[in-house]
Structure formats: structure tokens, C-alpha cells
């Protein structure tokens, strides 16, 4: 009887799903697709926030306290709010540098690696641009990195994670075909970005960024900088002024009036707008927003 009870307890313990916490909903969506019933996923950010300015709420602590894995984009994307929270959560396995803290940048071709590191250059990401979730090209690698992380944490689920990853990659391939076809018209379009968060989107569609509304990353615009960027946009004949849901629309609109370039509001994460419920939907949504403005 006692042995049976122990066996039942082990079975129950074995069936307990992996508790995965993610920094943003893009990663949560992929974890859900790959892990299926073997995982329970919670995203800390809703996707509406600026990735660097997610309000660090105390109520994140009980969530992090119970996490088996904490999956982040990496490249210091979440450094403004997540490491300190993870440290306060009394869960040593998910603090930065430990096995349960997962960064997804491994294997991704990182853009904008700074050649000069200095405080005068604004709020730099010394290892490169962390906004790879905004562009479509990192999807496969993100999926594989997630599947590997889940397998390391739960080796018994290897086949489930492998199958989930294959299925997701198939869907990404199908998405890429559509994006490549529809997005071809964007090649060579000149854009003004609000922040340095469009590098991957531009690289994928062949768009050229001619300037940013921010003086330097994280440094708010000044009147003289706006005057300069207006001039640059006019001389370079900028086609689009792009900002996301978490950036003030006021300045892009003003710039649009003086340069005649239309404003495009994109989503920088899943959940940013209603209907953008998956990473694949995010890519399609952003392409549609760009195409609407180009037409």
C-alpha cells in the first residue's frame, strides 16, 4: 500500500507541467506552441509596454517565485526591470546566470553591435540590438532555442518539444513565403524610426533607416535634433515614419506633416494590439501596417 502511494506521488510529480515564465508574450506564444500540455506559461509583460520600461510590479514576484524557467530575449533587453525582480523572487534557479534563466539570442545574427561603447552614445546595448522579436528572421532560431531550453529542463518531454518545434517552424516557413511575396514592395523604402528597434524589420524587408527621432538610444528628442531629422528625412526622401504602440505618436505626426512621409504604427510585441495574439500574427500585422502606408 505504502509503495503504491509513493508510486502515485511520483506519477503525479512527473505529470506536473513545467512552470515557464517569459518576459514578453512573443516568447510565451512560442513556448505554448512548442510545449503544449507539458508547460504552463505566464508572460510578465502584456506586450503593450515599451520593452525597456515594463513597470516592475511587486505582483511579478509570486509568479517568478514558482517558475522553473524564466525565458528572456537577452542582449540586455529586459535589464531595466527583470534581473532585480528575479533576484527578489527567492528562486535561485531563475536568477541571471543560473540554469533557469534562459536568453534566446544564441545563434541569432545580432545586428547593430556597437563599435564604440560610451555613455555619450545613450543607453546602449553593448552586445547588439535586442529587438530581434520584431523582425521575422529570428523565428526559427527562437523556436529551436526554446525547444532546447525546455528539453534541458524536462528531458522526458524531448519528443513533445521536438515535435512542437517542428510544427512551429513549418508555420514560420509558411509565413515567410507570404511575407517575402507581399513585402517585396518594401525593399529600398527609406524610413525614420522612433527608437533603434526596427533594425531586424528593416534588414528583413530591405528597408533603409535614415534616422531616429531619439537623439541617441533612450535619449529623448530635442528641438534641434528634430529640426535635423526633419531635414534628413526631406533630403533623403523618407517614405515612412515608424513608431510602435508604446512610443508617443505626437512627434511622428508632427514630422509627418513637415515631411509628407506617412506615419506607421506597428506592434513591437504580441499583445500590443487586439488581434495580435501570436508571434506569427505579429509579423503579419506589421507587414500589413507597412503595406497600407506604402500604398
Amino acid at each position, binding site marked *: 500500500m505504502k509503495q503504491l502511494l509513493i508510486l502515485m506521488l511520483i506519477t503525479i510529480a512527473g505529470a506536473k507541467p513545467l512552470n515557464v515564465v517569459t518576459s514578453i508574450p512573443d516568447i510565451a506564444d512560442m513556448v505554448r506552441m512548442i510545449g503544449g500540455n507539458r508547460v504552463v506559461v505566464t508572460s510578465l509583460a*502584456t506586450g*503593450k*509596454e*515599451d520593452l*525597456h*520600461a*515594463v*513597470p*516592475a*510590479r*511587486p*505582483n511579478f*514576484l*509570486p509568479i517568478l*517565485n514558482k517558475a522553473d524557467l524564466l525565458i528572456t530575449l537577452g542582449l*540586455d533587453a529586459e*535589464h*531595466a*526591470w527583470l*534581473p*532585480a*525582480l528575479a*533576484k*527578489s*523572487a*527567492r*528562486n*535561485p534557479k531563475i*536568477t541571471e546566470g543560473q540554469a533557469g534563466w534562459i536568453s534566446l539570442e544564441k545563434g541569432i545574427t545580432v545586428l547593430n*553591435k556597437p563599435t564604440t*561603447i560610451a*555613455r555619450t552614445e*545613450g*543607453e*546602449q*546595448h*553593448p*552586445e547588439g540590438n535586442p529587438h530581434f522579436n520584431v523582425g521575422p528572421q529570428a523565428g526559427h532560431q527562437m523556436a529551436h532555442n526554446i525547444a532546447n531550453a525546455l528539453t534541458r529542463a524536462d528531458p522526458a518531454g524531448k519528443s513533445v518539444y521536438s515535435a512542437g518545434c517542428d510544427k512551429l517552424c513549418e508555420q514560420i516557413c509558411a509565413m515567410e513565403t507570404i511575407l517575402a511575396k507581399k513585402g517585396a514592395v518594401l525593399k529600398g523604402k527609406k524610413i525614420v524610426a522612433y527608437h533603434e528597434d526596427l533594425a531586424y524589420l528593416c534588414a528583413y524587408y530591405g528597408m533603409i533607416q535614415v534616422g531616429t527621432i531619439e537623439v541617441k538610444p*533612450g*535619449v*529623448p528628442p530635442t528641438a534641434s535634433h528634430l529640426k535635423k531629422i526633419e531635414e534628413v528625412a526631406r533630403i533623403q526622401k523618407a517614405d515612412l515614419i515608424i513608431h510602435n*504602440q*508604446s*512610443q*508617443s505618436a505626437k512627434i511622428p505626426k508632427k514630422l509627418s506633416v513637415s515631411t509628407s512621409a506617412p506615419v506607421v504604427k506597428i506592434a513591437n510585441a504580441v499583445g*500590443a494590439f487586439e488581434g495580435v495574439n501570436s508571434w506569427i500574427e505579429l509579423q503579419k500585422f506589421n507587414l500589413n501596417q507597412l503595406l497600407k502606408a506604402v500604398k
Partner: protein
Amino acid sequence: MITKKALLIGTVFASTLVGGTGESLFNPSIGFTGDIVTDISDVNGQWREATSEGIAVRSGELILGAAIDPYAELTANVNFTLDGVELHELYSHFHSLPANLSLKAGWKLAQVGRWNQFHAHAMPFTADPRLLIEYQGGHFSTLGTELSWLAPTPFFLELTAGVSEGWRAHTHDSDPSAFDSDLDQRAAELGLTKHGSHWHGSNGEIVDAEEIQDPEEPITTVKNKPIGSFPLLGRAKSSVQFGENWSADLGVSGIWRKDHRFSNRVEGKTYSKAVVGSDLTLFWHPLTANKYRNLDLGAEWLGTYEENELLFGETVLQENRFRHGVFGHVHYRHNQRLHFGTYGELFQANESDLWLKKRVGLFTTVELTHYQYLRLEGSSYRESPNIDPVHRLTLQYDMSIGFHSHGTQR
């Protein structure tokens, strides 16, 4: 937005990119914050003459922090002023003990109240609430240990208990005072009028200094400290979410010291002191606009219970005092550069529960970037019912580089 701490970590990474040595990666995180203020006030009230306390370097904080080993981190905060250097904080933090516990040991700002844990430069206004200075002596610091437990509940609940070696509190602020000395202040509060080296009462009688102060009054320190003089402290804090954009932090705290004062008249007699408080802060952080627009408003109530000695002729009596008051604030960030707000406080004076001290202020802050700001504040402080309130205009300039240990405050 990247915190100062994040920027420093970035710099550490950077050293590897530009060919830094492995040794540099083992160096602690470093930060420095400068806090400078200047003011104009009408402290010589009756003539409305503008005076200034000059330019004060309130603090130059050098902050160091690093993991000691896999179990704990060390944080040190050294404060430089024009008058010298003092150690502000030096503690180790065992952040992941079993059973959801964490332990801080050393010398640090105590986890009591809301504003107690903020350094002056991290507050949205220029100076400490006077309520804190009145009842605690300023920011109460623990020289001892604090044990915190994160409750395994679906919502945030943290309980902290601590013990400190003594009643230690500090402030960087000074108010332009109408009084030349504590004796003058006490005399004014008793309604006496100064005349050379003595005072006159309401009937014209002469009052000497000895009659104003008690030379045998109980003392607060002794050489060999009894265990009862170690203050005990505790705090419970929680947070509630209202939809996506609103949340509230709330807490209750207390500090209690059994043997706070020692009688000089009755051998072995001691008098206790306690400070209790509760605080509620409401946050509006609209998710899509949080980077450039948000609001916080709150109130902190503090009460102090003190036993003291009272002389009635030759008879020594015990006096039990309870005083309380409240500090409230509103702080609105309008865009990435501009913040403004107001505060007010009303509290019973330590000297008499019949006298209320009142202070109100308006402030506005212009941030050049996240790392430096200029703040202008106008305030009015009525310290005593017998003197005019002091109106003051304060200009504060702050700048920070590198790591800072207050990264998780909100």
C-alpha cells in the same frame, strides 16, 4: 529605458568587447551620484529679507556592489560631503535562502515605512518628509539584520523582521531655522521672548536657561548597551493590481526600543520609544505610455509613542506621549522630460501634541536624460505656532553614473 544598474552591467560587458581583461569582470559594479542644492528663503520673516543657505553638496554617493560568492551580494554606499565622508550603507544580502527567506546583514536603510528607504536624490521632491525627521530622527538605519519572508501566496506579501544595534537615523536636509540654538527654539515653543541672555514670560517674569532645559533629563545612550536598547523592527507590505494600469502598494511598519532613555534620577529606570506607521501609494502606469507618462500618489502616516521623565516638584513621574502625523504627495510625469507634483504634511510636534507643524510644497523636475535632472521646489514650513512660516525656493541638481542600489524602488 535602462536603469543605472543596467547601464553599468552593459559597461562591464563592454570591457570584454573592447579587449578588457578577465580581472575587470570580477571588479564590483560602481556608481556615483551627485546631489547639489541651493535655496532662497525668507527666514528673517518679519522683514521678508531673502537669505540663502548657499550651495550645499548634500551628498556624493559612491556605490559599490557585487556578488561575494554564490550565496550573497555585498553593497556599500559611501557618502561624501564637503564636511567629510561617512559610511551610509554596508551590508550583505543573502537573497535566496530556503523557505522563501532572504537576509540582509550589516548597516543599511531600514525596511520600515515608504520614504525611509529612499535616499534624498531618489525622491520626487527635494527633501525628506519632516515627519520622518521629527519622529525617527531622519532615515532610520539598521545596524544589524533583517530577515524577510515572501509569502507563498498568489499575490505579493512580504514580511520583514529585524534587530538593530541602536537607534540610528540621519538626514541630509537642513531647514533654514529662525532659531540660533535648540534652547532658543524650546523657549519660543514655550511662548517666551528672548532678551539678551535670558527670556521673559507672558507676565514679564525673567526665565533663565536652567529653567528651560533639564540638566538631569534622561539620556539615550550608555556605554555598555543592555539588550533592551536594541530596537526591534518589522514591516508587512503588499501590492494590489487594479486592471492593467493601476496598482497600489501598501505597508505597515513598526520600530520598538524597550530601553530608549535611561533615567539619571531613578536608578535602573528606562523609558521606551516606538514608531508605528502605515503607507499607501497608488500608481497609474498606463502600459502603452509608461515610458513617458505616469502618476503616483500616496500617504504615509506615522505615530510615535514615547515614555519620558517628568518632574513634579521633587517627585519623578513618567510621562507617556503619543504624537502622530501624515505626509501625502502627488507626482505626475507628463513626458520624458517633465515631472511635477505637490506634497503636504501635518504632524503634532514632538514638544507638544497641541502644536501642529505644517509644510506644503510644489515641485517640478526637468530631466535632461534619465541620468541628470534639475528640480525647482517652493515650500512653506510652519515649525512653531509662535513664529512665521518659512517660505523657501530650492533648486536641486542631480547626476548619476553607473550602478545604483536603489534600482527596484518604485
